[in-house]
């Protein structure tokens, strides 16, 4: 399974996106704002997910804005920074 697909499945389950399927999310779709419409609590949930599943600790929550741009951007960041 590609990391992109893994992330889509995790995001749908973790953020309870009941009406959204993996196929509905394009790798370049914006996760916040007009894209998936995630909110600030979702951002915090993604920060916890990075730590728990990939061993990445974001010490500055503002970094999330750039990292959570899209599935592709997030996957690239994880590939570079993961410790597990």
């Amino acid at each position, binding site marked *: 399974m590609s990391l992109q697909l893994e992330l889509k499945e995790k995001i749908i389950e973790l953020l309870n*996106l009941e*009406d959204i399927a993996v196929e509905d999310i394009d790798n370049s779709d914006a996760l916040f704002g007009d894209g998936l419409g995630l909110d600030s*609590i979702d951002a915090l949930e993604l920060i*916890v997910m990075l*730590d728990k599943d990939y061993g990445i600790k974001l010490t500055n929550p503002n970094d999330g804005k750039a990292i959570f741009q899209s599935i592709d951007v997030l996957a690239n960041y994880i590939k570079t920074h993961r410790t597990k």
Partner: protein
Amino acid sequence: MEETPFYIESYVSIKESSIAFNGKNVFCSETKDLQLFLKKAYKARISNYPKFHKMDLLSQLALLASECILKPESHSSINKNTALIFANHASSLETDRKHQSSITDKNNYYPSPSVFVYTLPNICLGEISIKHQLHTENCFLVMPSFSPKDFLIQTNYLLKSGKAEKVLCGWVNLDANNYEAFLYLVSNTGAIKHNETEILELYTK
């Protein structure tokens, strides 16, 4: 007993996997599982509010019940001057337990922000207010059991003082597999007198 010129416009009860609005059954499911029941009831009664799935079970229960009263099919608009007075016995205990389980193991300490934000019972009032854009008075009381008198006093104060035109009262309790929601809308119109006897009769129906 305090008599007032106010009336109960409508009421809803959710318990044992069924929803009754104004005494008539409007939805029921065979499932005993609350989460599954809420999901099915959402699809049948709301269906266009994805944020529902992000809420904890107490908020889902409260929102689902409030939808029956605040947006019945026969009404075209909602009175934005509707205050909310809710109460229960178990506070946010079910979500508190879920949060506690995520912080008990020091070696696996990953509290969920989306769980933590619901570790207060009054959050469900915020969810209802956001859904219906209500900028009104609200309060959530924690008490040993359903108390018509306490609801009556608070409601009459809000209506008599002009702080609200209507008051949505609600008892929404959830503890493990036990749950119930009883909501009623009070204003100066309606067929049922707003007094302790009538409130208790509707609650125990």
